[in-house]
């Protein structure tokens, strides 16, 4: 049901763009106004969310320690999994952000007769997630060519790498294909793994369908439907330099659909779980050193609390203490 609703929503988005261009002729709205509005929403929204997180205090030092602590000099510390220094934390975060280290250690279990529980490593989610994020990233970076003139040289090398298969005309770029495959995998596992289906909300399916449709429309545009690349680049350069001077009618509808889907995605990010891309950097169980026995950590809102003092305790038990031979303050 959640999946279906999300699919319908994404189809509706495609139709809106189609009708908006083909029937209502709202080229300026879809080519200029909506992209600007989306980028503005994205920037303001993401900054707002990040600032809100950043301003929330971290009262306690609560890293999840995943290895040996730093203790006696002859005991080998797990410097990445249980960091006690900033460099260790940075290493841990880099591995987490770029290589999804925690997911790499994922396991699955099986309850057999006996009972006997067996654990095995499972890397599919890690692999799918890594493929998805990295290909998405490469696709994004590739799009820089639309906003720059001349195109920076590093993009050429990325494209050469990306097109290493050297098949098809225009040459197949592996990143787009991987993105589509990976996002499809992430969708299928949501549908076919019972536990994951059980926990999935519409807010989980929607971004998957949205990204799927972005990738599909992009691939259609590149390989199957002829689009006027020169006009598109004129538009994108114009958008980047705040001076759009191209005749928007020359660009075919598939481009507008693609652009509208991308705009929706960007505008949606601040309100969605996709914010995890910023949140992961601020997660106190990962970005703090386990050093609170070595160095004092301050809680900015620490406040005095009511305690039961020793004096009160001794008043309660003085005679019993004396009888038991325990020294007291007041005889």
């Amino acid at each position: 049901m959640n999946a279906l609703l999300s699919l319908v929503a994404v189809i509706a988005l495609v139709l809106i763009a189609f009708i908006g261009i083909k029937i209502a002729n709202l080229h300026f709205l879809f080519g200029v106004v909506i992209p600007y509005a989306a980028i503005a929403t994205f920037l303001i929204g993401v900054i707002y969310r990040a600032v809100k997180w950043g301003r929330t205090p971290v009262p306690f030092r609560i890293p999840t320690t995943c290895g040996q602590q730093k203790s006696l000099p002859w005991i080998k510390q797990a410097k990445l999994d249980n960091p006690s220094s900033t460099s260790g934390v940075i290493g841990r975060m880099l591995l987490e952000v770029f290589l999804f280290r925690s997911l790499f250690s994922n396991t699955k279990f099986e309850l057999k007769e006996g009972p006997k529980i067996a654990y095995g490593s499972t890397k599919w989610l890690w692999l799918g997630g890594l493929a998805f994020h990295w290909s998405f990233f490469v696709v994004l970076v590739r799009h820089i060519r639309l906003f720059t003139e001349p195109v920076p040289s590093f993009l050429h090398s990325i494209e050469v790498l990306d097109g290493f298969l050297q098949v098809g005309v225009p040459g197949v770029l592996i990143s787009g294909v991987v993105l589509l495959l990976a996002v499809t995998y992430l969708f299928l596992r949501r549908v076919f793994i019972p536990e994951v289906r059980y926990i999935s909300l519409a807010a989980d399916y929607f971004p998957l369908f949205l990204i799927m449709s972005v990738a599909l429309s992009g691939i259609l545009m590149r390989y199957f439907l002829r689009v006027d690349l020169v006009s598109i680049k004129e538009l994108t350069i114009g958008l980047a330099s705040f001076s759009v001077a191209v005749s928007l009618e020359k660009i075919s509808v598939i481009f507008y659909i693609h652009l509208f889907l991308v705009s929706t995605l960007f505008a949606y990010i601040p309100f969605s779980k996709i914010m995890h891309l910023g949140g992961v950097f601020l997660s106190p169980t990962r970005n703090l050193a386990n050093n609170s026995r070595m160095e004092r950590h301050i809680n900015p809102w620490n406040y005095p609390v009511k305690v039961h003092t020793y004096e009160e305790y001794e008043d309660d038990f003085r005679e019993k203490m004396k009888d038991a031979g325990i020294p007291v303050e007041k005889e």
Partner: protein
Amino acid sequence: MAEEVKIPPKVPKGVPFPDELAKIDYTPPGTVWMNTPVKFKQGFWCYGSKAKNLETVDFPNPRQWLPADEDWKLPENWQEIVLKGFKERLDKYRSFKVFMDICVRCGACADKCHFFIGSGDPKNMPVVRAELLRSVYRGNFTKAGKILGKLAGARELTYSVLKEWWYYFFQCTECRRCSVFCPYGIDTAEITMMARELLNLLGLNTDWISGPAANCYMKGNHLGLEPHAITGNIEYMLDDIESITGIRIKPTFNRKGAEILFVTPSGDLFADPGTFTAMGYLILFHELGLDYTWSTYASEGGNFGFFTSMELAKRLNSKIYAEAKRLGVKWILGGECGHMWRVINQYMDTWNGPADFLQAPKSPITGTVFENARATKMVHIAEFTADLIKHGKLKLDPRRNDYLKVTFHDSCNTSRGMGILEEPRYIIKNVCSHFYEMDENTIREKTFCCGSGSGLNASENMELRMRGGLPRANAVKDVVEKYGVNMLANICAIDRAALPPLMDYWVPGVGVTGVHELVANALVMKGEKERTTNLRGQPLPGVVETGEDRRKREDRRKGRLEAKKEEG
């Protein structure tokens, strides 16, 4: 080879037999979780907190209530109270705010929870446990949730949702295993702690938690041992030690000017096998000639406040530094305990420090300065003892433990909230000849909870405990079958209370021990008589116990039990 004798499982009242319990269906139900109201199952929940225990610590809404009742006797404006508390905590804890926002429901955590593995209840998947709270968060504090409602995974805070919270947030042991696997480190322990704080705003605790917390507040320890009971219990141990070793130990209590204050969970002073661990401490410190004192005021290392609210945890924890200051000690040594060490490692100094009236801990025996504890000034006894052994300061005869085949259970908090993994293993390997590790997916940072942590070690929720302990017990069973393991060592007082019934149920025949019981059994003391029994009074292999010895041992045990009954 002798025929193996199969010991029948000890099945707690009301709990199905192990074979029956192990038939677990993991297929999630067809209904959407949000639309499936909670159903309280007998054996899965604990009794509600008694009014007097809430009053002792000035907690709101003290009253007589039963969780099974329809009416929980809540204040009129309970929703307002909870939502206000929710907002306040979102503004105070970045962890809470971020963890409410960034979960992508990838499901990596789903099968990492011992309660899910043991029960198959989909709401025991860490992600759903958190969503119980997140759904209300979205409905009340996010734009998308307010506009889109259920579509955005949002829902209202209803009576039924509140009951669901209570049921499931007291089915989480705050073990943090899920947070190891989460790509963003989302920690369900953190979420459960917040949820329990919110529930406590309405007087909704379990009595197994609020009772010990109130005891600890007034009497200094969870068990409510008054000063003379503490010295009395230790006196019994000293009698036992004397009859076993021929040496009379004379520890001190509340002594000013001692070099070290020793704090350990009170469970070790009360019940077997924890008492044998406490005897281990006494023997070790005596042998070292350590200048230390026990305290009856700060007589609790553990902290059931931690399972209630941060504030109560801080109030209970304050006694340790206050007592160290009053007695004028130089530093503090802490016994074997799980959540006690998460509190000391990650909270104590922040709450109640700086401990600038103490000195950086230095072992008077080896001269080692414990650099890793230079701010809190509190050393874990496993660090202390490992250092002693490394420097050859202990005369050990591991052969005395040769009848034991030992495996080690990492406690949740000491592994995932501290990382003390090698120290206890180093000690065990030096005091025992036969040590075997369990499956690597069930130890160290991936260790499984005993199923009874975070205040769930009551007797009315035995089925939950046996289920939650299944992954741990099953990994023990594996090394029993492979290597003949017969002893499960640990460094946690709740483990020592919770694992024996768990073993009796799933893996009968396996004993449970603290690490320092093993140390003291192997420790050759100056001037000791030849040992014929271990600290439990059981004859060592090759020694035939005379009828008189056995009678004496049983009498001592009986005396101790009766004394306890009187106290209690």
